[in-house]
């Protein structure tokens, strides 16, 4: 390649290479410094660390629900109780509710998927009819398929 033989060509090649290295470096760095999903939850094994919120008491009062959540996808990604159910003092971004309105709560994160489903099949008013919120399992009852995972014949 004659371009790399001339002095300017060599400098250009070095400069181009440097730009590419810096660009790739920055891209990788941004993805490391601003992760798309935060993964602390996967490594959460110490239950005492959950003592500060609903979970610690609800593990005793509503053990099935608490355990389902803990083992489900929402639990693993630390989508905690208050994210959907709000807080008892009524502050925070979501109203306090035992049975939250799916249109307000689910859509906050799952809007693209809800829209896709709506286009294809239409919607039932309660997402919960097919997708049990607390049992979207990764490990929990892993061999027992929920209603939503059953294939339709």
């Amino acid at each position, binding site marked *: 390649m004659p371009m790399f033989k001339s002095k300017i060509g060599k400098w250009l090649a070095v400069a181009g290479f440097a730009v590419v290295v810096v*660009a790739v470096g*920055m*891209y990788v*760095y*941004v993805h490391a*410094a*601003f*992760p*798309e999903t*935060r993964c*602390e*939850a996967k490594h*959460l094994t110490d239950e005492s*660390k*959950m*003592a*500060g*919120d609903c*979970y610690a008491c609800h593990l005793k009062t509503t053990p099935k629900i608490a355990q389902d959540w803990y083992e489900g996808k929402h639990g693993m990604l*630390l989508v*905690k109780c*208050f*994210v959907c159910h709000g*807080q*008892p*003092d*009524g*502050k*925070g*971004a*979501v*109203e306090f509710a035992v049975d939250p309105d799916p249109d*307000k709560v689910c*859509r*906050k*994160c799952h*809007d*693209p998927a809800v829209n896709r489903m709506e286009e294809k099949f239409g919607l039932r008013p309660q997402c919960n009819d097919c997708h049990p919120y607390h049992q979207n399992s990764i490990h929990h009852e892993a061999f027992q398929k929920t209603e939503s995972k059953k294939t339709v014949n």
Partner: protein
Amino acid sequence: MKRGVRTIVLSFGCALAIAVVGAVAFEKTSTTGFCVSCHEMEQHRTELKLSSHAVDKDKKPIECRQCHMPAELGPRYVSLKAYLGIKDMIVHHFGDPDNFYRRELQLSARRFVPDDSCRACHEDLKKTYKGEELSREGKLAHDAYLGINGQTGKGCADCHHNMAHLPIFDRRYVQNAEFAAKMAAQEEGM
């Protein structure tokens, strides 16, 4: 010998020129004025002006970068600026800037609102912005955030939504009532 001197002088000159131009461009492109010079950002500025984050406690207007960029200059700042800047340019020229899908934008905006920008102003997490004590639940939530009592794995913007922007579908929430009313009044006046 002469050639060697010339090369050194030339390379220093180039480096200096790049540094000066870079620094000036960096400053100029960091202003709110530059952000809203693209028409698709007008809506976001209108919302910001009516929000609780329009001005800081000294009544100085809050700039885009104070929330959307890290608080301190550093490799984190520079990399994020480059990343978001290039993304914005691609969307502006090749995307569909008139029809933002704001649900999706919210998720990515939350990812790129660093906690240190929030906490540059909101220093004491045990008090409200007015200096009053937080509610018991509020304190528990912030303790969990700090890892003192429980842990959340979440950032400020993962819980505190609609602080400075309010898309139409988020106006129905009770806690956004005041903001929504202001937005509605503004649109009526238009």
